């Protein structure tokens, strides 16, 4: 393979990775604080993509307004599910929360297909050609996508590391008991967590819908690579999640130049195994003892 092809694959991997970094961050935050792998993450993304499409139809035109509406809607659903389901389960085993999140995933997706059907939709954005730098192709749309993702990531990292809410969040992630003992009220942190998780999944889904097509299985299909990316980065580590998913996406894209596309997923599994064997705490995570 020539260098240009590899470079293009890398660019593509970065774009997809940045896009998936948003829901991946949601996964890792939920894992670190609410302590379970949230299987509904993918379907929150799907919800984001569908609400973007729907609000574009209703509001007409402005894609930015549509995406913001989608983020609000997914954040609302995410909070609703917290208050109804995950809050009540917070004292129970993490497997029970995982199972419940599969139920949430099914419920969200089937509600979407009940109203929208099984057929595909597209989010209306103008088609533009890529800038071509001697074979290196960069898409203006992709730049917007990466820009939007970076902005969102910047905002959440700012909050996490430079505000009192963020400090409380990290304290709970470190040790829920210690945090409670030192008087941190978990409720507010949880509300903040689920708002962020919902909004980020919504944004990720909306961006994905713009880039690809809107289908009922859009987010669900991505759960596996996202979890792999999160593990690669170190489960529970926010920066790790972003680095992990981007690395992972690049690896997948470059690999599909060499192996058959079907083996992308096999490769993902393989990376996962190697990481778990050599460095179970991931790229940036703290060593996690067997729970």
């Amino acid at each position, binding site marked *: 393979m020539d260098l240009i092809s590899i470079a293009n694959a890398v660019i593509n991997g970065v774009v997809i990775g940045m896009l998936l970094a948003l829901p991946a961050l949601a996964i890792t935050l939920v894992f670190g604080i609410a302590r379970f792998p949230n299987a509904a993450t993918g379907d929150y993304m799907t919800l984001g993509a569908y609400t973007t499409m729907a609000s574009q139809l209703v509001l007409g035109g402005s894609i930015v307004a549509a995406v913001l509406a989608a983020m609000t809607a997914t954040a609302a659903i995410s909070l609703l599910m917290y208050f109804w389901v995950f809050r009540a389960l917070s004292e129970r085993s993490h497997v029970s929360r995982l199972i419940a999140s599969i139920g949430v995933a099914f419920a969200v997706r089937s509600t979407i297909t009940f109203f929208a059907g*099984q057929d*595909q939709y597209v989010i209306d954005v103008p*088609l533009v050609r890529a800038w071509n730098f001697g074979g290196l*192709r960069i898409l203006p749309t992709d730049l917007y996508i990466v820009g939007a993702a970076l902005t969102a990531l910047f905002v959440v990292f700012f909050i996490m590391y430079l505000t009192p809410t963020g400090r409380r969040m990290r304290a709970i992630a470190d040790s829920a008991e210690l945090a409670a003992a030192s008087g941190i009220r978990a409720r507010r942190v949880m509300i903040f967590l689920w708002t962020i998780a919902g909004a980020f999944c919504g944004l990720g889904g909306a961006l994905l819908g713009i880039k690809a097509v809107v289908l009922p299985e859009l987010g669900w*299909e991505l759960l596996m690579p996202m979890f792999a990316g999160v593990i690669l980065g170190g489960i529970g580590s926010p920066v790790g999640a972003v680095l992990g998913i981007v690395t992972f996406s690049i690896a997948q894209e470059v690999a599909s130049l060499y192996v058959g596309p*079907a083996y992308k997923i096999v490769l993902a599994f393989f990376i996962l195994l190697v990481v778990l064997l050599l460095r179970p705490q991931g790229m940036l995570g703290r060593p996690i003892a067997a729970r």
Partner: protein
Amino acid sequence: MRQPYDLSRRGFLISGTAAATLGALQAPVLAQEKVFRLGALNSITGIGGPYGPYMLEAIKIAVNEVNEAGGAAGRKFQLFAEDDQTKPEAAVLAVKKLVEINKVEAVVGIWPSSVGLATMPITNDANVITMNTCGAPEMLTENKKGLAWMFQASNAIFGNAFAEVARQRGFKRPAVMAFNNSTFVGQANYFKNAWESGGGKVEAFVIYEPNQSSYRTELARVLATKPDVISLSAYRPDATIILKEWFQTGQDCKFIMPGWTANEDLVKALGKEATEGLISISNVAADKHEAYKRFAAAFRKVAKREPDIFAAQSYDMVITLALALEAAGPQADVAGVNGKIRSVTGVGGTRVNGFAEGRDLLRKGEKVDYEGASSRLDFGKHGETVPDFGVSDIRDGKLVLKETIPGKLPA
């Protein structure tokens, strides 16, 4: 406290008796007016989701047409619909229900080859006619009782037609991209064989995994070989993404695609600019046939859109079945009806475009040849159609028919 209970129970008893009496009254009526129990097994959910629901609509339209005309051989069609979820094991249960509970005599609308192959042993055991759009060559060899009818051209014929068109249009450096399922991989392989047996070389051959959010790397791999045409065997969602990404690269290249993907729906998803010049190949039908025009009008009324080829084929399944039933007569069993399918579609009869027209001629003792909404429908010895293909270009968002090429099996 006892009284209301007793009352309600008496009420229940009364209504129960009433229902029973009603049932008894109705039974002889039903027996007099013998119905033909028809099963529709469609891929409503799963990968078939974009097509299955419309196939069911088309079947309903055809059933209405037959019933409004008074039924076939005096028998009205009673429809039982099931979703196979585009999954073989769900299809097995669904078809068992149709066969065992609903006692259907024919199952129409089977879409993917995997469902066709999984259900064939059951329908064969039960002596049930099946009509499908499956393209896998194994359908022909597994059709051991001759009860299965393939309304879609097999992959072999399709792949061949793609290669034929590429050659006629003067392309020199074709590449192949195909969705990883049996139909499209088959198509891609037959394209490659047909092209290479003609002395050419296929520049790139990529089978991609479905359900991805980007196919850019796969596409780059193909485009790197600088093909002048890509045979793209895809469904609408992946075709939308691939063509979007191809357009964005700005690289010049043509695409040959199956008609159920390259059509007005694709234009709606992608816009006119990105779809300009796509070559769409489909069973020729159609839009010239009276049957198609009438069907399309009825379809537009319920579905608010143009029918795709699978919908047209599903419509044809029911009409063909109805004509065969009419030809076989009211006393005929399933085998008798099945035996007439070739004769009502074969060459030599008077061409008819709809059920009522055909039935009237059949009653006069004439031979008919149903010219379907999907193709002219002539069945080969394994129950396969070898349709002619219509080659259309997409120009300014519309399909423009350029030429027709005769379909043929690979040498």
